């Protein structure tokens, strides 16, 4: 590992990285705009310039070179000595910050980026309160550049990150710099909008408020938002995300760095895959079929009721009880539910739930993949079923057995964001005598259900998903469960006969003891505090 000296402090860094990256990883706050570790280096913002010791051309003695060097473009080499803490570097940063504000509008009060804007931050730290520019300001236009994105080019600092993203990561090249010099702007070709499966990333990539998400536009000031680390359930790779929310609900989803899965990016599917959480028709109370159809039932009475009914069914024919474990469930939830049902019906058959697949896997130029499999935990469910053993089978088998009347009682979990049942599936499942359905929304199964239990979205739960490559990742709860509902895990915990609060971590310990693979939860690296 190379050792370099930054501001007199010896730092060990990963080989081959630029000095800027090494400094950021050492926790230093080095201003930068154009540099992003996931994109090509262009060294154009000139904010991260540093002083470097070089051999003097004549005496060959190591001395501070008279010029400044871009730290983003200079690879860290063992033994090199650089400094940011010098008059020359500070003067440069101060000047460059002044340049950025020459034409920048003072519209922070109406700018969505305010509060997480690196123009604000760096100006606060390094800039000057008043501009010395008294001449006419250049006012670049605001442009609608795509179905999801706006470009306020008057706020742009021309770091070209968005352009490079579209060139290198999405490979679609919609965004370009047009014009020359200070007339430069970002633009799309007229009629060829920014419209690709990864386009939303340009909004976070933008260090200022130039690229804006239409969904989030004027919605919230960012300092009112709370943030939770989560995993996106939209596809089987399990992209790491941040959920930004407050008491009003979710406002946006942002990418969270994950070196093994999504790196710095997420797909638009993941970014906008939270709308169903706030749908009006969410199920919000458990109901049990009486003589007048489904009637509301108190949560407290459900576990006992279900245990009894399932046990009764198991007494008729030992393997006539089925549990359908949805790949939308977390590992802990699936574990608890399977154990709970097997507790009263030991021969119960564990079925893998329906796996939604849309289209084919799409691989982008630098390896970002959008999976066709649109659920987060198929591997987790399969692993659990395999471990628990006994009778297990897949979704197709379940439908076959149900339609032939072999299944007397079934506990079917859904939880999909979209309509997921075909009419054939509904007809087959309708044959089950005692049908428990747990889902987010009313479905065609409602009319066949003996018991209907509301499920909650992943943002209201905690747990872990195992992605399509077998990587186990945890997600945290953002929102409280919708009023009238109960987190799935909590309910299964009670169904399994426990008293008290469900804690995913506790269940995980129990699972890990039984099956070591569950001890191995992957936690992605935290990005350095001052990296962006």
């Amino acid at each position, binding site marked *: 590992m190379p050792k370099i000296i930054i501001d007199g402090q010896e730092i060990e860094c990963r080989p081959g990285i630029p000095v800027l990256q090494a400094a950021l990883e050492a926790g230093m706050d080095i201003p930068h705009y154009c540099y992003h570790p996931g994109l090509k280096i262009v060294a154009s*913002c000139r904010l991260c310039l540093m002083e470097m010791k070089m051999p003097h051309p004549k005496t060959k003695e190591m001395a501070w070179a008279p010029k400044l060097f871009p730290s983003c473009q200079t690879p860290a080499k063992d033994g090199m000595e650089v400094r940011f803490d010098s008059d020359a570097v500070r003067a440069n940063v101060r000047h460059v910050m002044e340049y950025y504000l020459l034409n920048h509008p003072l519209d922070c009060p109406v700018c969505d980026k305010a509060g997480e804007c690196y123009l604000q931050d760096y100006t606060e730290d390094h800039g000057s309160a008043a501009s010395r520019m008294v001449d006419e300001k250049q006012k670049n236009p605001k442009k609608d550049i795509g179905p999801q994105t706006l470009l306020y080019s008057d706020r742009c*600092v021309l770091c070209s990150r968005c352009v490079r993203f579209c060139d290198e990561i999405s490979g679609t090249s919609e965004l370009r710099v047009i014009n020359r010099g200070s007339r430069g702007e970002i633009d799309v070709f007229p009629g060829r909008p920014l419209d690709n499966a990864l386009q939303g990333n340009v909004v976070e990539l933008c260090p200022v408020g130039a690229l804006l998400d239409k969904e989030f536009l004027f919605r919230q000031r960012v300092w009112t938002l709370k943030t939770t680390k989560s995993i996106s359930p939209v596809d089987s790779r399990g992209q790491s995300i941040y959920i930004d929310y407050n008491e009003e609900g979710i406002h946006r989803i942002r990418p969270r760095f994950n070196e093994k899965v999504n790196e710095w990016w997420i797909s638009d599917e993941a970014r906008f895959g939270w709308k169903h959480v706030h749908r009006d028709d969410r199920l919000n109370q458990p109901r049990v079929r009486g003589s007048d159809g489904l009637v509301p039932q108190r949560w407290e009475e459900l576990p006992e009721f279900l245990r009894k009914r399932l046990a009764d069914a198991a007494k008729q024919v030992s393997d006539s009880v089925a549990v359908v474990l949805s790949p939308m469930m977390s590992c802990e939830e699936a574990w608890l539910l399977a154990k709970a049902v097997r507790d009263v019906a030991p021969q119960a058959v564990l079925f893998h739930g329906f796996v939604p697949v849309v289209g084919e896997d799409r691989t982008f130029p630098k390896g970002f993949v959008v999976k066709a499999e649109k659920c987060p935990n198929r591997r987790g469910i399969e692993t659990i079923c395999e471990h628990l053993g006994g009778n297990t089978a897949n979704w197709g088998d379940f439908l076959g057995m149900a339609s032939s009347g072999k299944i007397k009682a079934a506990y079917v979990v859904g939880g999909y964001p979209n309509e997921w049942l075909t009419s054939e599936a509904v007809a087959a499942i309708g044959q089950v005598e005692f049908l428990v359905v747990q889902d987010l929304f009313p479905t065609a199964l409602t009319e066949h259900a003996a018991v209907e239990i509301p499920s909650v979205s992943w943002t209201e739960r905690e747990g872990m998903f195992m992605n399509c490559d077998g990587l186990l990742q945890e997600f945290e709860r953002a929102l409280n469960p919708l009023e009238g509902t109960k987190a799935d895990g909590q309910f299964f915990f009670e169904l399994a006969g426990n008293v008290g609060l469900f804690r995913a971590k506790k269940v995980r310990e129990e699972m890990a003891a039984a099956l070591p693979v569950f001890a191995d939860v992957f936690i992605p690296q935290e990005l350095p505090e001052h990296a962006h």
Partner: protein
Amino acid sequence: MAFERILMKHVDVPNSTSLSVYKSDGGYEGAAKALQMKAEQVVELVKEANVRGRGGAGFPAGLKWSFLPAERDVTYLCVNADESEPPTFCNRVLMETDPHMLLEGILIAGYATRTTVAYIYMRGEFIEQFHIMQKAIDEAYEAGYLGKNILGSGYDLDCYIHRGAGAYICGEETGLIESLEGKRGWPRIKPPFPAVEGAFRKPTVVNNVETLACLPHIITRGVEWWQSLGPEGSFGPKMYCVSGPVNKPGCYEGPMGISVRDLIYADEFGGGMRDGKKVKAVLPGGFSMGVLRGDLFPKAPDGTVDPAQDYDELDARLDFDDVRRYGLLGLGTAAAVVVAEDTDIRDVLANVARFFAMESCGQCTQCREGSSWMYKMAQRIRGGAGRIADLDVLVEVTQNMGMMPGESICGLSDGAAWPIRTIVQKFRKEFEQHISAQAPDAAAEWIRRVNPAAYGLPIAQGRAEVMPGGTFYRPDSEPDTVEA
């Protein structure tokens, strides 16, 4: 003794662009001789002669060639004919009078560097010159000086003209390469240098037209002859341009190191000022190198050189080193534009500032924003609404833009900063006179009109402070050599 014209020997010869005229005078003999030698020998010869690039930075051509990796399959030669540095036109003169001299130089350089394809990157505004050069290329192909197995040596070379389309920055070697590849002419970050990874990601040599035109003569006449011309370190003949209100504006050839005074006044060069006016200022190396004071100012006692004093600086000698003593960035293109005593220095400042504001490529922040800010200030000063504070801010901006060559991706930032700093510093008294002659509220009124938000601030009243610690300039440090 009259100087023997080498590069411009055919300027007055009728039909000089034709192959027959060129050949009648020893044309392509240098190439024939070079092709008998080993490629490495040619490189060594050029290195030994110490041919410094004529494009502006003065980087030794042979050394540049020797940076090419030994193992390479394809090599490109880019001929920099994007002559956009005002007021430079010697490459144009060379190409329109003696296109075959350039082609012969290309052939020699191409052979020495094992080039397979040579691209002449010619600025788009050169239209006549394009047709002249293209005709010469066609002739050369036909006569076997280009194409396959040139002169039976087994060496193949193709040569194409690539027309630019109006962008100063494409004269920067990596900007040129980007433009050649069909992109915007944004200079690349270095390393890798073009010699390692240039056009189409292959090893590439970029040489200026005049540099290449020198090669045939070095081959035929030898290193000794070459080094007999000009002072130590600045050998060879040089094409000088002089324009502005002189009696004979034009392109002239002389040895390296003639004085600016000679370039303006000598009969064989500019022939003196029109109407006997005095020289207020000269930009002697193209815009980017900075300004010298003219003979409107008194002569310095006993030849002292001090750019901080208001002395006549026309004795600066035009070679790679002497001009630096006068606060200039370097020799540049040795193209002088002369400003007469009756020209308002504010017009000069505004014109120069506009050039760089328009031509900055917009990649690096300092250059993009600084150049346009300086132009806005210069415009206001010219419009009679300047403030003393503007002069300080201008100097400070230039000090940040061009603290040291090499701090931005290319040299344009320094090139923009240098003339503006030297104009403001060397002619500060005149600026101050103009400003004090303005109506007292002229600046405030202007500011109120164009930027009402700034009007209320103290700065609008002319009380701008130079940022504390804001200037960083070490006059004692030596600027590095920049490749351009």
